């Protein structure tokens, strides 16, 4: 296997080196890539979409169709992780560990699979037990809302500064993952249950594709946000800018939900009970 690996690697290497000689030099402003298609994106974005961030304009408008499928890829990954990993809810008893919070005694209780309610005096702990860590819990607790606000800011300001739906969605998802890591998976699930994030994920993509389909219903091409001008009561160029924002919100929702979904499935091995 090792010789095969070296062989394949060497072959690829030789092939690519062979082609490298004919590349235009790095960062050469006169190369074909910079002169054929892309100048129009830079020169016309303000005029045609009124979005200063050319990347966002190209991402969500000129090549918005790619981005729709990009979001679909993420959604598909979420569904796939659920599909191959999630175990059906088993019946029958399970042993759980509880700790009496005043004396620190740990007891093992036989109970049903359903995640039990929170008790006043007993605290449920994972079988792989992590101690109560005051510093991490408190700091993360304080950090999470700011992280979420930052994620929303990134989504909302994708037009004017780097960022957009995907980045903001990942940050939002990371905030929930942070909660799940610093406390435990049950805490995060109590805030956002499985059904919620599993439904948010297609809904996010649906916002995107639905916007496109709405344009189609309004008589323009698919994803031609100019058609939204009639609904939003603005001129077509601003309508494009708003259309991009709507789409980015959809992307953000879908990405957030998927990241949480994948993390929950992987970290709990599909049981949705105890996480990392």
């Amino acid at each position: 296997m090792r010789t095969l690996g070296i062989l394949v690697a060497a072959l690829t290497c030789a092939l690519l080196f062979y082609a490298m000689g004919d590349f235009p030099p790095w960062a050469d402003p006169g190369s074909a890539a910079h002169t054929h298609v892309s100048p129009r994106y830079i020169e016309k974005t303000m005029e045609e979409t009124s979005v200063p961030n050319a990347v966002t304009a190209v991402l969500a408008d000129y090549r918005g169709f790619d981005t729709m499928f990009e979001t679909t890829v993420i959604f598909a990954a979420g569904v796939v992780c659920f599909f191959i990993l999630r175990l059906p809810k088993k019946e029958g008893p399970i042993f759980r560990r509880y700790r009496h919070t005043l004396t620190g005694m740990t007891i093992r209780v036989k109970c049903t699979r359903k995640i039990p309610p929170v008790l006043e005096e007993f605290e449920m702990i994972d079988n792989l037990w992590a101690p109560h860590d005051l510093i991490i819990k408190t700091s993360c607790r304080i950090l999470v809302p700011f992280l979420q606000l930052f994620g929303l800011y990134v989504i909302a300001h994708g037009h004017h500064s780097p960022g957009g739906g995907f980045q903001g969605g990942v940050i939002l998802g990371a905030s929930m993952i942070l909660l799940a890591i610093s406390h435990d998976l049950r805490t995060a699930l109590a805030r956002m249950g499985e059904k919620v994030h599993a439904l948010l994920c297609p809904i996010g993509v649906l916002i995107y594709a639905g916007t496109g389909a709405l344009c189609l219903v309004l008589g323009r091409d698919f994803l031609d946000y100019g058609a939204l001008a009639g609904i939003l009561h603005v001129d077509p160029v601003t309508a494009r800018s708003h259309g991009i924002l709507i789409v980015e919100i959809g992307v953000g929702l879908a990405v957030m939900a998927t990241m949480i979904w994948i993390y929950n499935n992987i970290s709990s091995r599909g049981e949705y009970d105890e996480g990392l």
Partner: protein
Amino acid sequence: MPATTNTRENTILHEPGQGSDPGVTPSTRKRARAFLPYAITFILLFSLWIVLSGKFDPFHLSLGLISCVMVTLFSKDLIFPEPGTEGSLRTWVCFIRYVPWLLYQIFMANLHVLYLTFHPRMMDLIDPRIFRFQSRLKGDLPLVTFANSITLTPGTITVYVSIDGTFTVHALDKSSRESLPGEMERRIARAFGEE
């Protein structure tokens, strides 16, 4: 291992709305108190949004309002898990007064570690130990502030804090070991009104 844990935090975190008793109608004052965390969270978040956004047209401001309301509703019990900890104005002022002193301490700490790092006979100079001491602080936030301050200041790192205020600390050398709990604890206690 800690013998006890924080019950309050757990109840709040798992079941956000469990604290209120449905049988008792809350008086207006109580309602105002319950509303206060929301308000403070919202103001904090919105000021953060202003700093982040830097755009003051109505469109972006309304986006900011919506986002802040969403985050507030989603996570007000994360910043202030127990009613009453949102504190008074005095706490905030005291806390802000504490920060410059902390910065000075951090600067000194950095010089201290820098000196140790570049000292040619560093191995003889340091004497790492793990030791414990009992703090008189109570409440989550003061404890965590104290712990983080310890981590940031001369030659000490907090290893573990138990809920009743027992600190386990790793110290790099003798002088830093002797400086604890010392003045820092006093200042934190003053900042959080536990004097």
